[in-house]
């Protein structure tokens, strides 16, 4: 099944996240990832939701989300016309013999070492989901102790913006 990225503007209010999450479980939709944070307008939060499903599912997700009163606007992002990023923090085993090899890997992937201890290195990595997956794969041989990922956030390229009051509000069902 294909992955679809939805950019959803919601009221920055208590309970919104639970409504959105509840809708997904109740209607049997699968969330791949969900990232939420405030926007340039403090009253508005943006959720970037990656949905796993066919076109029918994405259409239903969009329509059902639109029914939530606290959802202001939804847009499905075209992967070719948007920038997708995810942040990962990876704590990997490091010994005196492996440390330099790991550091090389970090260089190649343009990641960053943010913490060092006698037996570990903690790496910060930003990139698309697939880049992070590739990096994770390379680090596996050293033993990953812990990994934390934010889920994807995404923004449209060029002049386009998704803002309250701009353009169509996505409420049309046609």
């Amino acid at each position, binding site marked *: 099944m294909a992955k679809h990225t939805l950019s959803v503007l*919601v*009221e920055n209010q*208590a*309970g919104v996240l*639970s*409504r959105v999450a*509840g*809708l997904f479980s*109740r209607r049997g939709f699968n969330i791949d990832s969900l990232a939420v944070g405030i926007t340039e307008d403090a009253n508005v939060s943006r959720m970037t939701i990656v949905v796993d499903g066919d076109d*029918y599912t994405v*259409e*239903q997700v969009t*329509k*059902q989300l*639109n*029914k*939530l*009163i*606290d*959802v*202001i*606007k939804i847009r499905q992002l075209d992967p070719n016309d948007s920038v997708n990023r995810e942040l990962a923090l990876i704590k990997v085993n490091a010994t005196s013999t492996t440390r330099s090899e790991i550091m090389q890997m970090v260089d190649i992937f343009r990641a960053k070492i943010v913490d060092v201890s006698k037996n570990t290195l903690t790496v910060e990595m930003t990139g698309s989901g697939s880049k992070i997956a590739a990096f994770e794969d390379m680090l596996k041989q050293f033993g990953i102790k812990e990994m934390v990922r934010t889920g994807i956030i995404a923004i449209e390229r060029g002049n386009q913006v998704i803002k*309250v*009051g701009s353009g169509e*509000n996505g*409420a*049309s*069902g*046609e």
Partner: protein
Amino acid sequence: MKLTGAQTLIKVLENEGVTTIFGYPGAANGPIYDELSRSEIKHILTRHEQGAAHAASGYARITGKVGVCMATSGPGATNLITGIATAYMDSIPIVAITGQVPTEMIGRDVFQEVDITGATAPFCKHSYLVKDGKNLAKIVHQAFHIAGSGRPGPVLIDIPIDIQAGASEFTYSGESDIRGYKPTYEGHVLQLKKIAKAVQEASSPVICAGGGVITSDAAEELLAFIEKAGIPVTTTLMGIGAIPAKHPLYLGMLGSHGVYAANQAVAEADLLIIMGARAGDRATGQRDKFAKDAKIVHIDIDPAEIGKNLGTNIPVVGDIKTILKQLSKYIQQDYKKEWVDTVSQWKRGGAEKINPADEIKQSQYVNPKYVLKVLSEMTEGKAIVATEVGQNQIWAANHYQLSFAGGFLTSGGLGTMGYGLPAAIGAKVGCPDKTVIVISGDGSFQMNLQELATMKQWGIELKIILFNNSRLGMVRELQKMKYSSNYFAVVLEGNPDFVTLASAYDIQGEKITQNEEVKDALARALNAPGSYLLEFMIDPEESTL
């Protein structure tokens, strides 16, 4: 001007035109009840919070206004849940107001605390947990706006007791602009032209009218449309009454519990126009076989319903009444006479099969279909009917010949046993001049029979028709068909003597065991002043269809 939360609530309720509240007091809504006692708003004390929610629903359906119910925190709030879910499934506008434990105690599992906004989220159109008294007026106003507009539904407002009691500056603008909520009312003109073309090209068109036709008060426009274009109409359970039952173009109810003519017409249709209906499973049966040769037009105010259950060729989002008015410009006078003649024959053929007249001689038991036929004649279909759920519901749907839109109150989507009696109470309060009849079975009647006391206390006069087969008839029928007649847990031994029970609440009653007695008994019940219960003894083998 500073007002307490309770004062603010009552003031805004009055501003919203609320004249009646169905509710039940408790510790956590004390300040509201204290204030309500000094208000012009009439409070109907039910005997269970579920009764209050269903009564608010019946009231809303009859008056077209938003119904209001109230309960305290914890168990009071959870008792509302079935009523809220019932209203949600049938798109009935109600506002439920619950008391909540004090703000600073929330989350500590104190006495009678429950997360009611969380519990009801999946089946509420929207809900609020009030956290600041200064927002209360706006919230209440918005709640009414959301409940009653677009696709209607229940909205819950949970108010902690400290907010009810605490004072804050009263600000009320009456502003109902909500940026995330903009229902579409007008249909897209391009789509409407497509419908007109499809109607013109069709040789066997059928309209399926759902509850949306009744909600949007579009019965008159629908009638004008079908009479101009000559299109037969079937309804869903929720759509019953969208056109008068005796209208020559009415096919009857669609679906697994519907009638032959309706299902046959849809099966052979080359154009199916669904208006204000979800195309739910009970109406469509197997989706891939439903109207398989037909071009599908789906008109609904809720975009999410279009394409959810059924593929659609011409989708139109908007309000049915508005769209039918718009559409009248494009529809040509073109009566599909040949097709109408064909379906009329199916109608006659089907009618013979279900005509109970030949069974009239049967003794020992009463034929429920015959009872409803006689009831239709005596009331001319002008009485409001509220049904319970089970065989009684389907008998009523198929045999009570309702003559006006909005007069059939039933739990269509959720199938809530115990809906009929309290919904009828709400309907009678909302429309005291009309005869209101409860159609029930002995199973579902006992789900909310405590509301007989509500009838008595508030002088609410209902005629109750109780079909007693001492069984959970519809489940029994299911066991007969699907589980090799392995009847289990469907015999209602221990039924009370319902006539004696009614008399305990000062309600007159009679038990009827013969078809010959039906006419006179119904006449006595309908003509008697006050409430009346008629218990009809039904053969347990009597089938739904």
